[in-house]
Structure formats: structure tokens, C-alpha cells
């Protein structure tokens, strides 16, 4: 209490300059929000990965050398008798292909489908290379658009292993049109344009068109989340305003905290834009987070203000504000410091740029909320024209207030049977530990969508009818130009492909070797016995040359570089789950290292699947560390601000319980630990600590004046308890809004943070006082000149 007079002096001066404070705050809000319009969005999956990560660097290199980007995949699926091999479906493929080629966001030469690819076939005296749907053909006798041609194409595909599973499903029920987007930033527009083309197509009976692929997902995700966030964020604001109105039944108490919220949110995102940081998918969660955090400070200050007015209705408005701020600056500052510590620890312990940004701008937001709550809010309170005491705080009526009665009865129950409370907590803790141990690490990007979303259904439909939509790439590098003519090297690649195909969920593999074998067979009258790698390097070189001479100069670009030194082996995977990738990537890397690599040829495992694997593996390995770091940071900060180890530990207790219960819920309900869920605990730490600190600060105040007996501790409940209750309702309500989201990760995020906040609130008003009254820690009592030996159990008289 010794600091209050000094602080009052500061508060006094601040309030006497209130107009200056308001003007300065307005200027700061303007300055920080100034860059807001330049905020850019980045919904790509690559955004989550450390740009220096080797997996990402290799993937980008592969994209550069082989010209591969994340494609949009359009599937034409027909499960009827002839599958896709009928005139109508082939005509559909052709018209979709040509319309997609016309899109300006798409590289027309990098659209792959039955309408663009060549058949290679051997004849007794030569070789025919021609398009499946060409008008003028030699091998195909049926005219384009005839049933005969459709059957001939089916036959040709059955003789062309390279296209089986990749271009056409092995059952013949699906065929793909794969379009590469020129600029990934156009993913959204491209996806929309392709959807538009598909919706205008004449679709034969029994045929479905599905649109999927990384390019589609990225495009889809950005609108999906945007649409959702633009609905949810204002809704969170509305819910919190309603909570404020209910808590205080006062207009100013509903409006002024919203000013603080707006200033905080505008400032944080304005500075985010100014720093050139992108708005990532998960950044949407930060908006609600900041709303919840910034409103909490206001709730506690307003609660104190109205309590002061109630206790002394004749007090001058400015004096009341001064008293309220003097009383609350300490807990508000303490909670802000600990929350900042939690956010910074999250930022420091993560390797993913979006989470680093989340932690950093979360911490910044908390600081802004702290600043505005202690300056702008009091200044605005003093200039608010009325000094009406809202209904819940009117003397006489106050005891009838529902929330106060509720909190007080909780207090009586808890303080009446503290041992039961502690015992129950131990039971819950035990169950929670068991549940938390069931949590598995997993992530599947497609699970970001509801199963009823077209892109989700497309993913499942394509994976069930073809070799799979996810790509695992292996970059094979030889020492010199033409190194890939070496038969031994090609045999190594062939063996590598055979090995990959034994791994789980691998649908198939393709590489230049498949072309070499097809060509070798074709130049030998189509004899299947020659579907082999020639043992003559010159012949291999000449086969490459032959194909190059018969096709476009860039036809081979996706499989081999132009000087025939590097090749790409691509495996198609049916599953995008981390738990599956975990079985693939390390096994393949081991094979490459132990079996494949030698002095002349070296392979590197890369591609989207590998990048995803390393990304989630980072979560797998760093989450525990991240949580511990945040927890330790918060605990240490609490110890420092209370200048007591015991108080710090007490403050940390509800937080620890909250996190444990979040994990227990995840463990019991089967929610995996993934990209978004991995942050929950750290965010929960930042939010939960507030309850413990407000409760503890008040308990200490009571302890110092009245001691720590049950009778004294009941004082915790009517005011602080009530404020905590509305703090809890506001934050839980704000996050609870996320549960109505259409984006599954946001639903989980909202739900789990609501769980954490509830646990922290309940523990702070039950377990914490129960422990305090049972053990009566000295740190919460008034310092005594002389300690008695048994001070811990000493009851002050």
C-alpha cells in the first residue's frame, strides 16, 4: 500500500491533464492505425515454415528448376460403366481444359490433362507420338468425339503405366486436369475462376466435377476464413458489450471499454502492417484475443470505480476515478506484465513465423490495452457528463445483485470446506493428467474445412479415385550434364520408386525413368518386353532426344532439367495427415541416405508432403518446450511482481490446471495437437494468469488487513469475485463466439480457450482461497517485525 500515495500523485497529474491525455491518445491511435490499410494477407501453408528451413529451400528450388508450383486440380469423376471413357466426359475434359488454359492466372503450357498429353506408341516400323484428343491421328482410328476413340484412349492408357493413377484413376473412374497457377497470390481468383468454369460446364449424367489441390485450398481458405472472421470479430465485440451492459447496467461502462478495445485492436494491427508482417490464417484468433484481454482491464477498473461510488455516493467524480485507478493500477499492471511474458515466451519458443507474430503482436496489444486502460479510460470517465451510479452498485440493492450473491455463495461453500475443494482438485488433476497423456500430434490441412465444404469433398473424392493429390518429391542430382543417361543411375531411380511404392498411402510414383521405359518399348515395335531401362547410355540419350524432338521443348520440364543433370521423382500420396507423413518421410530419407546416395548421384526428399512433415514435426518437438517456457515466464513474472516465490507459485497454480485441462479435453475428445491447437495452451496461459493475479492481489490485501481466516477471505467474493466473474463471462463469451465459426480450427480454438478460462476462473475463486485459508502463507500476511517460529499456522487475532 505504500506506493499508493505516490501513485495517486501520478494519477492526479494525469487526470488534471486529461484533455492532453485524450488528445495524445487520439494521436497515438491515429499514428499506430495509420498503416492499417496496407496490411497484407498470407494464407499459404508455406507461411508457417521458417523461410530458412532446408525442406522449404529445396521445395522452392524444385519449383524453380522444374517449373512446378502448387496446382489447382480439377477432377472429372464418373463411377458408371465406362467411367470417364465416354464421348461426353472426354468432351467435358477437353472443354474444361481449353477454358482453364484461357485463364490469365494459369500458365497455358502447364495445364495437364487427357486433352494436352501425348500418347507414345510403337508400331512395327516406327513410333507414334500424338495427343489423345488430337483431331488428326495415326494410331487412333476413331474420330475425335467418337465412342471408338473413347475406347481406344482407354486401351492406350492401359498400355501407358505412367499415366495410370496420375492422369487417369486406375479404375478409369476419374481423370484430372492439373493447372499451375502463375502467381500463388492469385490462388483465390484462380480458384473462383475455375469454379465458375466448372459451374458453366455441361456435365454428363452421373459425372461430378471436383476442384482441389494446394492451389485451390490456399485460395479457398483465404475467403473461408475471411468471411468467417468478418462475421465473428464484430460478434465477439457485441457479446462483450452485452456482458458489459449486464455487468454494470450502464451506458458508459459499455461504451468506454469498447473505445479501449478499438484503440488496442487498431493499434496492434496498424503496427503489424507498418512492420510489414502479414496477416496469417491464425492471426484471426488474435483479434478476439485482444478484444478479450483489453476489455478485462476495463472491467476491473470500472468495477472498482463503481464500488467506490457506492461506498461514498457523494464523492467527486474525479476523486472516484483517481481512487479507482490508484487501487487497480497494480493488479492491472501485474496481469499485463504476466500476459506479456506469456505471449513473448510463445513468440520466442516458436519457429513458425505466424506464431512468432501472434506472440509478438499479442504482447504489443496487451501493452497498448494496459496503457489505454490506465490513461484514456480514466480520462474519458472523468469527462463523461453523468455520475449516475448504476443499479448493481446502488446501496441497499447491491446485495440483491445476482452475480454478487452467486459469488458470495461460492465463497461460503469453498471457505466452509476447503479440504474438500483441495481434494476434488487433486482428483480432477489426476484425471486430467491421464487425459493429457492421450493427446496425439497430428495435422491435416484439409481438416481446416468442414466435411460439407466442396473443397473437402473434392479432396476425399480425388484421393479415393486416383493415386492421391498430395505430392512427395525427390530431387535426384548427378554430377554433370547428361548424368541421367547412365543406366545404373536410372536403375537406382527405378529401385527408389519401387521402394516408395511400398510405403503407406503412396498411390504411385512417376519420373523420367517411366518415360524412358515407355520410349524404349515404343521404338521396339511396342513389345512389352522392352518396357525396361536400356543398358546403353547412348541409347538413353537418344531416347530423350527422340522424345524431345517429337514434343514441345518444355514437355519434359517437370521430370528433368534441360541439361539432363537433375531429375524429379514424384510420389502421389492419398493422405495429408501428419501421422501418415511421419511414416513416409523419415523412412524415405533413411533409404536415400543408406541405399540410394553414392559418389555419382544424390537424392533429397522434398515436396509439399516433406515440408508439411517438418513443419508439424516442429510442433511435435517444440510444443512442450513452448508451454513450459510460457508457464515458467509467467510464474517468474508473478514471483517478481509479488516479490514472493510462494505467491508466484500460487498464481501459477490455476494456470497450470487450466492448461492441463485443455490437454485433457483434447486427449479425451481426440482433438489432435496441430498448428492451431499448439498455440492454445500458450494463449490460455496469458489469459488465465489474470484471474489468479487479481484473486491473489485481493487475497493479499485482505490478508494484510484482516488475516487469512475463512471469515476474512469471504471479502474476496463480492467485489473482486464479481469483477472476475464478469471478466470470465466476457472472455469466455468472446472466445465462445468462435465456436459458432465455420472454420473447424477456430471452433476448437474458441472452445478450448473457453475451457481454459473457465478452469482458471473457477480455480482462482475456489482452489486458490481454499489453499490460502488452509496454509495461510506468510507472503500474503502483513509483514511483522518479529516472526514467531510457527508463523505459518499462526492465526492473527
Amino acid at each position, binding site marked *: 500500500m505504500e506506493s499508493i500515495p505516490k501513485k495517486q500523485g501520478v494519477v492526479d497529474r494525469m487526470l488534471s491533464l486529461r484533455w492532453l491525455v485524450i488528445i495524445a491518445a487520439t494521436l497515438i491511435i491515429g499514428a499506430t492505425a495509420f498503416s492499417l490499410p496496407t496490411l497484407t494477407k498470407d494464407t499459404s501453408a508455406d507461411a508457417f515454415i521458417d523461410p530458412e528451413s532446408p525442406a522449404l529451400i529445396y521445395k522452392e528450388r524444385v519449383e524453380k528448376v522444374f517449373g512446378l508450383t502448387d496446382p489447382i486440380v480439377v477432377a472429372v469423376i464418373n463411377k458408371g460403366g465406362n467411367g470417364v471413357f465416354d464421348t461426353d466426359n472426354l468432351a467435358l475434359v477437353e472443354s474444361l481444359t481449353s477454358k482453364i488454359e484461357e485463364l490469365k492466372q494459369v500458365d497455358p503450357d502447364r495445364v495437364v490433362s487427357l486433352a494436352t498429353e501425348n500418347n507414345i506408341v510403337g508400331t512395327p*516400323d516406327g*513410333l507414334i507420338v500424338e495427343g489423345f484428343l488430337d483431331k488428326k491421328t495415326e494410331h487412333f482410328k476413331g474420330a475425335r468425339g467418337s465412342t471408338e476413340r473413347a475406347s481406344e484412349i482407354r486401351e492406350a492408357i492401359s498400355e501407358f503405366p505412367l499415366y495410370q493413377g496420375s492422369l487417369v484413376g486406375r479404375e478409369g473412374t476419374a481423370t484430372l486436369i492439373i493447372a499451375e497457377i502463375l502467381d500463388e497470390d492469385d490462388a483465390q481468383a484462380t480458384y473462383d475462376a475455375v469454379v465458375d468454369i466448372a459451374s458453366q460446364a455441361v456435365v454428363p449424367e452421373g459425372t461430378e466435377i471436383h476442384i482441389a489441390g494446394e492451389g485451390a485450398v490456399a485460395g479457398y481458405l483465404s475467403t473461408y476464413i475471411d468471411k468467417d472472421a468478418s462475421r465473428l470479430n464484430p460478434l465477439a465485440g457485441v457479446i462483450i458489450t452485452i456482458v458489459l451492459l449486464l455487468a454494470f447496467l450502464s451506458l458508459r461502462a459499455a461504451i468506454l471499454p469498447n473505445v479501449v478495445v478499438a484503440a488496442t485492436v487498431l493499434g496492434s494491427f496498424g503496427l503489424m502492417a507498418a512492420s510489414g508482417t502479414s496477416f496469417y490464417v491464425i492471426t484471426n484468433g488474435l483479434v478476439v484475443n485482444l478484444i478479450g484481454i483489453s476489455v478485462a482491464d476495463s472491467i476491473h477498473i470500472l468495477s472498482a470505480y463503481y464500488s467506490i461510488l457506492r461506498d461514498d455516493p457523494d464523492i467527486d467524480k474525479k476523486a472516484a476515478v483517481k481512487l479507482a485507478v490508484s487501487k487497480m493500477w497494480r493488479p492491472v499492471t501485474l496481469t499485463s506484465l504476466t500476459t506479456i511474458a506469456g505471449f513473448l515466451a510463445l513468440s520466442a519458443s516458436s519457429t513458425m513465423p505466424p506464431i512468432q507474430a501472434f506472440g509478438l503482436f499479442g504482447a504489443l496489444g496487451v501493452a497498448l490495452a494496459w496503457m489505454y486502460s490506465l490513461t484514456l479510460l480514466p480520462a474519458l470517465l472523468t469527462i463523461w457528463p453523468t455520475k449516475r451510479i448504476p443499479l448493481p452498485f446502488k446501496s441497499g440493492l447491491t446485495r440483491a445483485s445476482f452475480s454478487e450473491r452467486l459469488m458470495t455463495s461460492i465463497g461460503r461453500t469453498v471457505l466452509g470446506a476447503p479440504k474438500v475443494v483441495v481434494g476434488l482438485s487433486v482428483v480432477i488433476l489426476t484425471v486430467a493428467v491421464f487425459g493429457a497423456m492421450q493427446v496425439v500430434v497430428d495435422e491435416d490441412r484439409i481438416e481446416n474445412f468442414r466435411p460439407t465444404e466442396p473443397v473437402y469433398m473434392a479432396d476425399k473424392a480425388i484421393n479415393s479415385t486416383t493415386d492421391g493429390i498430395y505430392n512427395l518429391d525427390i530431387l535426384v542430382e548427378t554430377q554433370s550434364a547428361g548424368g541421367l543417361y547412365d543406366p545404373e543411375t536410372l536403375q537406382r531411380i527405378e529401385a527408389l520408386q519401387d521402394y516408395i511404392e511400398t510405403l503407406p498411402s503412396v498411390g504411385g510414383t512417376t519420373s523420367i525413368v517411366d518415360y524412358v521405359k515407355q520410349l524404349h518399348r515404343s521404338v521396339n515395335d511396342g513389345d512389352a518386353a522392352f518396357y525396361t531401362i536400356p543398358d546403353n547410355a547412348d*541409347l538413353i*540419350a537418344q531416347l530423350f532426344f527422340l522424345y*524431345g524432338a517429337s514434343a514441345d*521443348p518444355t514437355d519434359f*520440364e517437370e521430370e528433368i532439367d534441360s*541439361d539432363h543433370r537433375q531429375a524429379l521423382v514424384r510420389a502421389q500420396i492419398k493422405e495429408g495427415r501428419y501421422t501418415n507423413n511421419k511414416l513416409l518421410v523419415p523412412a524415405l530419407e533413411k533409404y536415400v541416405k543408406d541405399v540410394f546416395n553414392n559418389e555419382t548421384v544424390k537424392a533429397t526428399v522434398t515436396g509439399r508432403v516433406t515440408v508439411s512433415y517438418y513443419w508439424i514435426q516442429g510442433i511435435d518437438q517444440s510444443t512442450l518446450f513452448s508451454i513450459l517456457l510460457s508457464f515458467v515466464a509467467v510464474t517468474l513474472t508473478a514471483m517478481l511482481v509479488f516479490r514472493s516465490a510462494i505467491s508466484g507459485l500460487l498464481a501459477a497454480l490455476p494456470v497450470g490446471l487450466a492448461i492441463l485441462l485443455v490437454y485433457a479435453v483434447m486427449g479425451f475428445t481426440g482433438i489432435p495437437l496441430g498448428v492451431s491447437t499448439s498455440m492454445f495452451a500458450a494463449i490460455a496461459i496469458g489469459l488465465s494468469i489474470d484471474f489468479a493475479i487479481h484473486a491473489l492481489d485481493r487475497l493479499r490485501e485482505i490478508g494484510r488487513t484482516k488475516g487469512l481466516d475463512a471469515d476474512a477471505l469471504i471479502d474476496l467474493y463480492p467485489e473482486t469475485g464479481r469483477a472476475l466473474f464478469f471478466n470470465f463471462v466476457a472472455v469466455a463469451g468472446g472466445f465462445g463466439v468462435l465456436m459458432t465459426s465455420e472454420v473447424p480450427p477456430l471452433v476448437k480454438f474458441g472452445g478450448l480457450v473457453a475451457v481454459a478460462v473457465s478452469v482458471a476462473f473457477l480455480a482462482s475463486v475456489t482452489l486458490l482461497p481454499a489453499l490460502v485459508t488452509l496454509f495461510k502463507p506468510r507472503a500474503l500476511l502483513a509483514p511483522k517485525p518479529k516472526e514467531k517460529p510457527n508463523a505459518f499456522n499462526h492465526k492473527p487475532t
Partner: protein
Amino acid sequence: MRLIISLLSMTCLALPAIAQDTLTGDEIVAQMNARDDGNYVTRGFSIELTDRSGKTRTEKTIAYRRYFGDEKRTIIFYTEPTRVRGTGFLTYDYADPAIDDDQWLYLPALRKVRRISASDRGDYFLGTDFTYEEIKKEQKIESEDYRFEAKGAEIIDGRELLIVEGTPLSDDISDELGLSHVVWRIDPEIWMSRKTDYYDQNGNHARTAILEGVETIDGYLTTTQIFVENHKTGHSSRITFLNTDYTTEVPESLFSQPRLRRGL
């Protein structure tokens, strides 16, 4: 007939330059097609292929061409790179566009001559960014493919070039050539297009071809270097013609499958 064309072309070249402004597209194209390119020729091709990352690969060939009446036969042998040395292509190009060309390939490592499917005229020539049509026509234009329109003149590198735009006469021709339209910029001094823009069937600017070198060799106006860039793929090709010789007779017997097998 070839003599008539030669005589005609000389007459045309003698026309005063002032008449150019009033020439129609068809007249300009007729001037181009009137150029005599000799009954037979021997020359080397040095083919430089550059991919989108700027990596360049060079191939070298020796090529022979001879007219058999209206029919044009070509044989090309690769000399570099070493691994494809001896690989040969033999083409019979019939005057009637309705009849497909015949093409044979010899792969020395396979020791077999293989007939390969006729290419569309709009297909790329031996892995370059030039089409078969462009290589075959040697700076001439198939007048039966297009409707020509003269579009005035443009000055490039100090030369006044006549602009002619060609639009395929039918969808079939457009399909076959893979083009929606072509813009030639013709130098009336030599009646060759110095810069040609090709637009694909979607109307996108697909390629630009530049005539980089022209010389008179053995009395014949001869292309010595051509370059083409594919705007869609970033790939480009340059062909330099070396040791062009119109005087040494190319024997008729050279254009046969046994000769293809025997190699250089």
C-alpha cells in the same frame, strides 16, 4: 516452273520502291514467296536452346535439302552432342498440304530406322521453339493458309518494314498451326520478315521470331541466323546456319533410308 518463279522474282525486285505503300497483303506475301532458294543446299545448323533459368544447350547438325519437282526432301544428321551423334531425320515434304509428310528417324544406338508420326505443322521442330512450318517454309508463307491484310509500315532499327497480318482461313488451319493470327514485319529490301509475332489460339502473344542474319551466298539471299522466344515458357531458340553451300550438288540418293542408317 522454278525458272518462271526466279524470273518473276527478279522482275519484282526491279520494281521501284515507291510502289510498296500501295501493295496489298497478298501482293507482299507473293513477293516473299517468289524468292528463289536454290534447287539444293548443304549447310550446318547450330541450335542453341535456352531454358527459363537461362541454361543453354547447343546441338549441331549437318543438313541437306533438295527439290524433287514440287516435293522437298531434307535429311539432317546430328554431330553434337556426342551421345546423339549420328542420329538422323529424313523428311519427305509433299507439295500438297493435304498429304502428310513422311518422316523417318535413325537412332544409332538402336541401329534401326523408325518411321515417326507426321507432325502437325504447328508442332515444335526438333525440340526448338520454331515450328515445323516455319523451318520448312524458310521465311516464306503458305499463301493458302491465311487471309492477309497490309497494316502500313513501321520503322525498326532504321528500316521501314511493311506490316502484314495473317488470319487463318479456317478453324482447321488455325488448329493445325496452333495460331489465331500472325504479324509479319517485312523488309522490302529482302522480302523477308525481320520480326514476326505469333499469337496462340487463345489470342495470347505466344512467340516472337527475329531474323538476325541475312547474306547473299552463291547468289541466293540466305538466312544465316534466326532467333525465337516463347513468351509463355520463357524458353528460346537460336539457329545459326553455317557453311551454306548451294553449289555442291546434293545427290538424290542421299534421301533414302539406307543412307539415313549409314549416317554421315
